[in-house]
């Protein structure tokens, strides 16, 4: 479970996050929904211990990220917005490297690699260097890398960006399987259809502040709108007027 409690983060004069609080529970998919520059990625980077909040704190399964960043990172699987693969390494070498960074070795490592290969159907690309991989193949490697150590909490920053329909469907299926297995899945997105289908809990962020959160159906009802997209526009606009 990931608890974000009143975090704020400035970059010089720019206030990226002003007041964000939410809880991403186990067995649920929690989505940060917001426009570009609303503070979603900054929030996720704070969860991943890449940034230190100026105020507030983040805990991952009870471990304070600011106090014990490495301890929290052991419990997290990170799927970044850019896949960032090493083009001279094979898919298998990527998985082995990240598994070792999580302290795995020997049979445990081999077993974990076999398991994730089977889960993501990566047999055909396993021994190939990642140079020249399609976006879908790159996504598979990045996702496999994020879950190789079976983390309880998985954080994905705009995971469907740049993917084709088939890759999106496959990713969606895997996220639902992770949820069903009791994992805490936290992702960011601004694709309404995807959020509506996947999410159990939506956190709407505008200008670095949470303006609404809850199950998608509740948010639609609360806003009095026909769908999540209209609800998002209504709720964030209301927040903007209130802030003004």
């Amino acid at each position, binding site marked *: 479970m990931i608890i974000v409690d009143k975090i704020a983060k400035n970059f010089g004069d720019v206030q990226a996050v002003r007041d964000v609080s939410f809880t991403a529970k186990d067995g649920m998919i929690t989505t940060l929904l917001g426009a570009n520059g609303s503070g979603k990625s900054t929030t996720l980077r704070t969860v991943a211990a890449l940034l230190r909040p100026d105020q507030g704190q983040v805990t991952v399964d009870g471990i304070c990220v600011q106090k014990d960043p490495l301890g929290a990172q052991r419990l997290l699987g990170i799927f970044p917005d850019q896949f960032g693969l*090493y083009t001279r390494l094979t898919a298998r070498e990527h998985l082995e490297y990240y598994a070792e960074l999580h302290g795995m070795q020997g049979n445990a490592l081999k077993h974990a690699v076999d398991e994730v290969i089977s889960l993501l159907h990566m047999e055909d690309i396993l021994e190939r260097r990642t140079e020249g991989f399609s976006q879908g193949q790159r996504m598979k490697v990045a996702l496999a890398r994020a879950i190789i150590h079976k983390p309880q909490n998985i954080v994905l920053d705009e995971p469907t960006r740049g993917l084709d329909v088939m890759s999106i469907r496959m990713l969606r299926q895997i996220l639902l399987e992770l949820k069903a297995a009791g994992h805490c899945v936290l992702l960011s997105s601004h694709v309404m259809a995807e959020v509506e289908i996947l999410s159990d809990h939506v956190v709407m962020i505008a200008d670095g502040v949470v303006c609404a959160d809850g199950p998608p159906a509740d948010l639609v009802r609360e806003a009095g709108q026909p769908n999540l997209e209209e609800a998002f526009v209504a709720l964030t606009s209301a927040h903007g007027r209130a802030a003004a």
Partner: protein
Amino acid sequence: MNRMIKTVYRKEMKDMLRDKRAVLAIASYALGVPLLMAFIFFLMADDRAETARSTLALSGADQAPGMVAFLEKQGLEIIPVVSLDGPESLPDGADAMVVLPKDFAEKLSRGESVPIQLYVDETSRQQADRGGEVRSALDAYSQHVAGIRLVTRGVPLSLMAPIMVNTSDLAPSSFINKMLGNSLMLVFMLAPFVMGMSVALDALAGERERQSLQCLMAQPISTAHLVAGKWAMVATFCFGGTMLAVTIDLILLQFVPADVLPFKLQLTVGGFALAVAELAALSMFVASVLLAVSIHAKSFKEGQTYMSMMMMAPVIVGYAKMYGENKLPAVTKYLPIFADVESLGRIFFDGTPNLAVTGSAFLSAVVGTAVCLWLTSRRLSSEQILSEA
């Protein structure tokens, strides 16, 4: 070695050994530099040919045996040739040609002045010098004959030559040799910079360029371990490549004739072991410097610009050591790079290391490495790097 450091090290080595740029950099330096040195030695060998005897083609040599004997005593090689009127070029192998008139011997015996024609070719400085050498020898012969004529007429020789000039060359005869010796040390010293540059750039600037740094930093590994693993990889390339270059250089030097070599190696087994240890320390220091530069670049291309600027530092230091050693304060020999050139020079050419300078080279390498790694680690953990990654 810490398991995390080892994990990063193994991955980095595997990745970089597949990088054609890194392998090419090592191969070109390790093989190209010995070829460059061989070319320099070849030029030097050719230059030494200047000291060979100048050759004079002499037309009418049969009527001037005394002149031939004198000129040969002066160091000229005489080639008798058939008289040519208005030659367009010098005979093959001749540096100058003299045509004696048919009445040369007769006029000389009568005590008359005999005009002779000297042909030279001043196309190059070397040919001009050799023509001048022949001219000087002929002038000397003229003085010699004049002296004999005066002596036979009762005039003391001292009246003709009130001043006897003897010239001694006080120029440091070993300057060029020492400079070339220092050049070889500079080649050894620059090797780790060249060998490690590409992999150091890829290790950090490359991580930022391919946007893999953020994901890597989100893994449960401290920046200190991450930097240490990458540094160990760069240092391995620096040291391995340097030793390859040094080994190839030393092997090839064995095939160069001793009289062509501008210096004499006095390398002992102990000295070689000390040189290897010093090059290892230098490689570790250079690896840390390269990473400290690499961390400031957002891309490989930007990093290459920084590296080019940084590379000027050891080159300037090396050339200052080679050309301005006497003008530099004594303390400079204990500074990084200076100390390495000085120390390696002592080990390779004197056979006896200067322990103070060698110790200084080791100390500066250790301190420099610690400072650079600390700076790199600090920079890597800064939020600015991650927000730009």
